[in-house]
C-alpha cells in the first residue's frame, strides 16, 4: 500500500520492461483495444483534453506536457524527472499505470496481455508524427454518450453545496486526485461528471456502490458535486 519512491519504481519497471518493448503490434486489433480508453481519452482529428489528455502526438512527448491539462502531481513530477513517452515507457505505463506513476489520476487497472498492449501502441502510433514516417489515420469516434437531458446538463451547480456533499465522496475517492483501486473524480469536465453520475443513477454503469450513492442524489446535487470537483486541487 505504501507508495514507493517514484524514481525507484520507474527505474525498476523500465529495466523489467526493456526486453519486450520492441514488439510491434497490429493497429487494427489495437483500435478495438482503444474502446476501453475512450471514456476518458480522445484521439484523432478534433481530439481534445477531457477527463484524460488527448493522445495525438503522444510518442516522443514529455510526460505531463499539455499546458492546459491539469495532471496529477505525480505525473507532473515524472515529466520534470524526464519521463518521455515511447514504446517502452508507454508499454510499462499501460501494463500497470501506478507502478510507473504512483499517484496518477488515470484510473485504469492495467493491461496485462503483452500482445494487446503492443496492438494498442501500434494504434496510438498512427496519431503521432514522431517518428515522422507514421501516416496520419482517419479520425476515430470521439466523445461520450450524451443521453442525459440537456436541461439537466444545463443546471448550474453550487460549488459550496458540492463541498458539503463531497464529504461523502472523499471517504473513498481521494481529494488530491490520486487513483489507487478507486478512481480519481477531481478536475473532470463538469459535463462528463454529470453524464457519468446519471449513468450510475440510471443503472447503466454497473458499480453497486456508485449506483447507490448516485441513486439518491438529486439533479441539483449532482451538478453541485460536478462544480465542486471540477476545480479541486
Amino acid at each position: 500500500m505504501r507508495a514507493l519512491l517514484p524514481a525507484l519504481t520507474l527505474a525498476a519497471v523500465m529495466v523489467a520492461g526493456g526486453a519486450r518493448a520492441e514488439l510491434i503490434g497490429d493497429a487494427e486489433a489495437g483500435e478495438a483495444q482503444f474502446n476501453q480508453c475512450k471514456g476518458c481519452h480522445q484521439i484523432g482529428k478534433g481530439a481534445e483534453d477531457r477527463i484524460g489528455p488527448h493522445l495525438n502526438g503522444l510518442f516522443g512527448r514529455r510526460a505531463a506536457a499539455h499546458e492546459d491539462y491539469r495532471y496529477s502531481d505525480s505525473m507532473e513530477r515524472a515529466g520534470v524527472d524526464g519521463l518521455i513517452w515511447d514504446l517502452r515507457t508507454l508499454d510499462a505505463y499501460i501494463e500497470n499505470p501506478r507502478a510507473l506513476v504512483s499517484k496518477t489520476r488515470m484510473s485504469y487497472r492495467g493491461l496485462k496481455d503483452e500482445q494487446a498492449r503492443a496492438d494498442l501502441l501500434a494504434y496510438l502510433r498512427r496519431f503521432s508524427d514522431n517518428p515522422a514516417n507514421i501516416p496520419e489515420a482517419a479520425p476515430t469516434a470521439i466523445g461520450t454518450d450524451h443521453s442525459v437531458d440537456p436541461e439537466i446538463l444545463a443546471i448550474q451547480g453550487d460549488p459550496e453545496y458540492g463541498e458539503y456533499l463531497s464529504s461523502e465522496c472523499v471517504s473513498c475517492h481521494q481529494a488530491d486526485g490520486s487513483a489507487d483501486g478507486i478512481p480519481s473524480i477531481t478536475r473532470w469536465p463538469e459535463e462528463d461528471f454529470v453524464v457519468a453520475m446519471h449513468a450510475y443513477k440510471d443503472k447503466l454503469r454497473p458499480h453497486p456502490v456508485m449506483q447507490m450513492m448516485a441513486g439518491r442524489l438529486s439533479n441539483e446535487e449532482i451538478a453541485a458535486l460536478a462544480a465542486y470537483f471540477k476545480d479541486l486541487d
Partner: protein
Amino acid sequence: MTFNRRKFIAVGTAAAATLSSPAVLADGHGKPRVVVIGGGSGGATAARYIAKDSKGAINVTLVEPSRSYFTCYFSNLYIGGFTDLEDISHTYGALAAKYGINVVHDWAVDVDRDAKTVSLAGGTVLPYDKLILSPGIDFVEDAVPGWSVAAQNKMPHAYKAGSQSELLKAQIMAMPEGGRFAMVAPPNPYRCPPGPYERISMVAHVLSQMNPTAKILVADPKPNFSKQALFEEGWQRHYSGMIERIGPDFGGANVTVDPEAMTIDIDGMVETVDVCNVIPAQKAGRIADMAGVTDGNWAPVNAADMSSKADPDVHVLGDAAAQGDMPKSGFAANSQAKVCAMAVRGALTGSKVFPAKFTNTCWSLIAEDDGVKVGATYEATSDKIAKVDGFISQTGEDAATRKATYEESVGWYAGITTDMFD
C-alpha cells in the same frame, strides 16, 4: 454605588459578543471551544472537519492517549500477511500542523457536564462549549467466564489494533504443526460485524500456507453473521475442512475459557488449543459511562446531529453510539463525524447546516484477491438513523470482480485515512 470599570468592560464585551453568537460567547472567552475525546475514525474526522471548515473560528482540542494510532480495519490483513503493521499506523502531526488542532496525548478521566469541563489524567481541565465523544469500545466484564483483560496476553482479543494484533499473529506463527486455533466470537452488537469472520479467513490463509493440517474452531453465540453466505462459500472454496463453527444450537453461546490451561469449554466439551482469540461482548468506551450519557451498554443519540439524548452539548460518534441501523464500523464513524461536524459548526458559528446523510461500506478479504463488500445509505429520522438502500456482493462472482473489490478496499483505505489524518 461603585461601578467597577474592569467588570463593566467585561460585561460590555460579553453583551456585544452575545449579539453575534449567543450560545457560546456569553461567558466572555474568545473562540468557541470543542473538545473531542478519541482520535479514531469518528474523533479524528470530526476534529479535522471542524477545524478545517471553520478556518480558525473554533478552538479544537483532540484528546487521544496514543501517539500512534492503528486502524482496526486492515489489521486482519496484517494477520493474513497482506500488509505491514506500520502501514496501518497513523500519527496526528498533520492535524496539529495543517489545521491548528490542539492534540493532547492523555487519558480523559472525567466529564463534568454541569461545569462543561473534561479532566485529563495528567491533571489538565479542558472547558468546552461542545464535547464530542468518540471513545470506541470497551469489553463487558465477565462476558466470557474465565477471561478478563488481565488475561489478554495469554488469550488476545486483538479487537483494538496494535500490540494485540502483533501478539495474535506471533501466536499463530508459533502454532505447532497440526495445532488448533480457537475463536470466541462476540454477541451483537459489536464493532465491525464481518471482522471476526474476515479474521478467521486471514488465519486460515496463513495456516493453509504454513501449517495446512492445523484446525480452526469458532464458538459463536449468534445463529447468523454478516456476509455469512459469502464467507461460508469462500471457506469451502479456499480452506475446505479447516474451519469448524459451532453456533448457538450446539452450545456456541455457552463458553468458558481457562487462559492458564489454554482450554476452551464449549457447552461441556473441553478442548485444549494452541491459540485462543477471545472477542468478548462490547460496550461504549468507559468515558461515555463517566459522562453519564449511556443507557445500558451504549450512548443513545439523535440521528440528525449525533447529539446525546442526555445532553444537547455532548455528541457521541461511532462504535459507542446507539444510533439505529448503521453497523459499528470505521466508515460509519467517519460518516457520522461529518454530520456532527457540520451541526457543531452551525451551532457555534452560524454556518449553514444541510440535511444529514450517512453512508457505510464494509469490505472483507476472504483470500488473496477475493474481496467482498456490503454497504448501505442512511438518513436521519426522528427516532434513529434509518437505512435507505443497500447492496451486498453476490456468491459465485467471478475472480476479476472479487479482485477489483479487494483493490477498491485498498483505495478506500487510502481515502479514509487521508480524510482522517491528512
